[in-house]
């Protein structure tokens, strides 16, 4: 029993409620929001060190015995994700202050971000499949508020699509949970992991597993369910886009990783084969999009889809290399996607457009910015020693060790396409003839660039210091590969 598990979920909730009391007081809003995220980060670090020293932490709410009450579980995998999502939110907050606009700040922008964080951290921590639905709804509610926040015309148009897709997938989610309950009689994930191997009706469980893949696939934007993502993510301002791109799809990816390693393992020949094929198709579809557009936002948005494919391919292999690679790549991807979106955001502020063809020659006036962008781009593509490399290496190794060597080949080949797609931004925006740009106040520029640069530096540290992080990643992978560790922590408190 350890209530510490709940701190990263409850602290942002408390601060969000406090922020709702005085929406118009600008400085208070900023200060309290940052204090809230910083407190959450501190609690996440405490939880991390606790999990690192004492193993999987679990608490079942309301003192009910474990399979009956709602369990919250924090293993290394979930705490790593909670940590990275909180770090991303902190930097996005710093970036929002100069960019989001006073009007948005005064109409509940910060509470919405903190509610989003409650939902994301809760989804990463919960050990109950219905509670997962609840936390996903919490983060969706906050994301509805954020996507329409400001009420610009494209935002209104895209938010209707976003709402419809998510309401339909949520309805499917509840039905899938109901099917699962009617077959197994439990919703506690640890208990599911105990009960599912004892059930002989593998056929119906396979159907349910695929249904869950569809539900989480909507959130994670896998092929062919990613159709809503490029349009919807294009609409809101860059800070919100960075949050969505870094966190929201990752919740779907996390849910697939958790369910497909913990309990949907009764028919891996079908379900994980399907997952591998879908993952590869997702990568290919994302590559087509990333190369097709001349819009910097669109290019990075399609790169979200590619990363989702890479991570899911690793988990579909179900061997140590693949799973550890997926975890590393997931953490890397949260940080690097946020960093890239923020960098691209600065580009669009400088040029006043997101169209690559209207950019050029920025390396002369903003050299540091240019090289930072290049480092982030190389990190995304996975050039050693940057942070994309160790994860991708392990995933590819996992594919070769497993039965899907062709998948690994596709990942290696598409890495070049990913590199091309982001280096294209570098070439168009920083090389060539300088175009006329409006001068930006130096202070304003620095207030956007500094948080972004620190985030990029963090990804470099994650890549160059991979040796330092690998023990934690292997710990996380071990729990995913040996569900008994997770089950014992929850059921034998």
């Amino acid at each position, binding site marked *: *029993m350890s*209530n510490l598990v*709940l701190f990263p979920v*409850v602290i942002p*909730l*408390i601060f*969000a*409620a*406090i922020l*709702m*009391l005085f*929406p118009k007081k600008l400085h208070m809003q900023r200060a309290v929001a940052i204090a809230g995220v910083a407190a959450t980060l501190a609690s996440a670090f405490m939880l991390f060190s606790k999990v690192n020293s004492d193993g999987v932490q679990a*608490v*079942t*709410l*309301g*003192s009910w015995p474990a399979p009956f*009450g709602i369990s*919250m579980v924090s293993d290394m995998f979930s705490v790593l994700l909670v940590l990275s999502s909180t770090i991303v939110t902190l930097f996005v907050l710093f970036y929002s202050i100069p960019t989001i606009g006073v009007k948005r700040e005064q109409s509940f922008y910060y509470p919405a971000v903190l509610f989003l964080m409650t939902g994301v951290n809760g989804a990463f921590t919960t050990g109950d499949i219905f509670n997962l639905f609840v936390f996903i709804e919490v983060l969706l509610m906050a994301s509805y508020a954020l996507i329409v926040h400001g009420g610009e015309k494209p935002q209104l148009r895209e938010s209707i699509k976003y709402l419809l897709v998510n309401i339909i997938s949520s309805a499917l989610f509840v039905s899938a949970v109901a099917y699962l309950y009617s077959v197994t009689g439990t919703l506690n994930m640890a208990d599911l992991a105990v009960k599912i191997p004892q059930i002989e009706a593998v056929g119906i469980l396979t159907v349910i597993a695929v249904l869950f893949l569809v539900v989480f696939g909507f959130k994670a934007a896998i092929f062919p369910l990613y159709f809503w993502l490029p349009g919807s993510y294009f609409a809101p301002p860059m800070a919100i886009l960075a949050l969505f791109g870094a966190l929201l799809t990752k919740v779907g990816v996390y849910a697939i990783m958790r369910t497909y390693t913990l309990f949907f393992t009764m028919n891996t020949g079908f379900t994980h084969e399907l997952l591998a094929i879908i993952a590869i198709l997702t990568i290919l579809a994302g590559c087509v999009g990333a190369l097709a557009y001349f819009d910097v936002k669109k290019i990075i948005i399609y790169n979200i889809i590619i990363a989702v494919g890479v991570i899911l391919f690793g988990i579909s292999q179900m061997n140590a290399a693949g799973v550890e690679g997926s975890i590393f790549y997931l953490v890397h991807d949260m940080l690097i996607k946020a960093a890239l979106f923020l960098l691209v955001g600065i580009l669009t502020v400088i040029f006043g457009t997101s169209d690559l063809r209207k950019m050029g020659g920025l390396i002369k006036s903003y050299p540091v910015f240019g090289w930072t962008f290049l480092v982030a781009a190389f990190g995304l593509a996975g050039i050693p020693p940057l942070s994309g490399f160790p994860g991708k290496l392990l995933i590819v190794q996992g594919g070769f060790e497993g039965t899907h060597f062709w998948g690994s080949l596709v990942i290696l080949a598409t890495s070049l396409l990913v590199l091309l797609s982001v280096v294209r931004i570098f070439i168009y925006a920083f090389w060539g003839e300088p175009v006329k740009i409006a001068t930006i106040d130096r202070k304003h520029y620095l207030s956007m660039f500094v948080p972004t640069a620190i985030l990029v530096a963090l990804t470099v540290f994650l890549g160059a210091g991979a040796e330092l992080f690998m023990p934690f990643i292997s710990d996380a992978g071990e729990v995913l590969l040996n569900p008994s560790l997770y089950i014992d922590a929850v059921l034998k408190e």
Partner: protein
Amino acid sequence: MRTNDVMLQTATKVVTFIILMFAVHIFFAGHYTPGGGFVGGLLTASAIVLLMLAFDIPTIKKILPINYVVLTAVGLLIAIATASASIVFDVPFFTHAYDYFDLPLFGETSLHSALLFDIGVYLVVVGVTMTIIQTIGEDE
């Protein structure tokens, strides 16, 4: 054109109080029997909405000068604070406490910390429902 709504207004003046009383009854009925903060909150909100239909939004705002967003926030804080009290006592989150007390008039009554949580839920439900309805209602 102004329609004649004397009947509606007269009836509302009485019915509102019946609904509010029923809301209180349902609110306290919760825990052991069906009811609780959520339904109680919805009933209270429906009583206020009925007032708004019978009269108009400016009048009701004058009678009940409540900022419903703040009401929601206060409700949330009460609910979280009740749930978080378990952290102080070092028992799992959301664990509730109860005991039996001899109260004048009521006799032996069981008092729950869950009631405090329900008050929070009640305020959140009233606040959110009224915020939504007011936003839609004002948007003309």
